[in-house]
């Protein structure tokens, strides 16, 4: 069970391969893994976006992601959970967030992955500032989905 704030590029597929090698070597208990990756788009609210700065509340983000994982582990039977979130400067196409859940069965994996992702988007203390062709702006609200 790991959550981490990254200041360097997030490479979701390499991170997943590494994590599985460490946590599941020789094990065949996980029948299902569900993964979500959120990536920076080059378009938001009709405007071209050239870059982004992701601010966060150090200390609170770590604690909040940790609590999300604990709460998910109470609600569903999970074998492992991995949550990675970028902060700092990002470019369009850069992955922002990875949520991965391993379980014996697929319903728990799907449900827990989605629940963590929705909670993270609505409650974890991160803020996006977008760089446009002219100037920059704070993102006002998250898309509902």
């Amino acid at each position: 069970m790991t959550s981490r704030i990254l200041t360097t590029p997030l490479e979701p597929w390499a991170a997943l391969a590494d994590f599985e090698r460490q946590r599941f070597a020789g094990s065949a208990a996980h029948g299902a893994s569900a993964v979500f990756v959120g990536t920076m788009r080059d378009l938001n609210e009709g405007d071209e976006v050239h870059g982004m700065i992701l601010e966060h509340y150090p200390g609170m983000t770590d604690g909040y992601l940790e609590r999300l994982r604990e709460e998910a582990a109470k609600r569903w039977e999970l074998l492992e959970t991995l949550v990675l979130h970028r902060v700092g400067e990002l470019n369009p196409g850069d992955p922002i967030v990875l949520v991965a859940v391993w379980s014996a069965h697929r319903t728990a994996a799907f449900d827990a992955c989605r629940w963590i992702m929705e909670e993270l988007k609505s409650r974890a203390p991160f803020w996006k500032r977008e760089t446009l062709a002219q100037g920059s702006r704070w993102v006002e609200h998250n898309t509902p989905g």
Partner: protein
Amino acid sequence: MSISVRYFARLREQLGRSGDELDAEGIRTPADAWARANGGDTLPANTLVAVNQDYASLDSTVRDGDEIAFFPPVTGG
């Protein structure tokens, strides 16, 4: 001792500073801390509050040494 106040994102920019260190005397809630630090300025609508890095309400109890944070709706993920 004192109470630390922190501001993030748009609110930090609007206030022009990322935090305040307040004398704990007379501060019992995050609302008290906001009023002390920002005088008559109204707390912007939708501002979220955390005490010791945990979500809290404006009228929750704070103690000497606590960290209070004010920030706009989150937009991560």
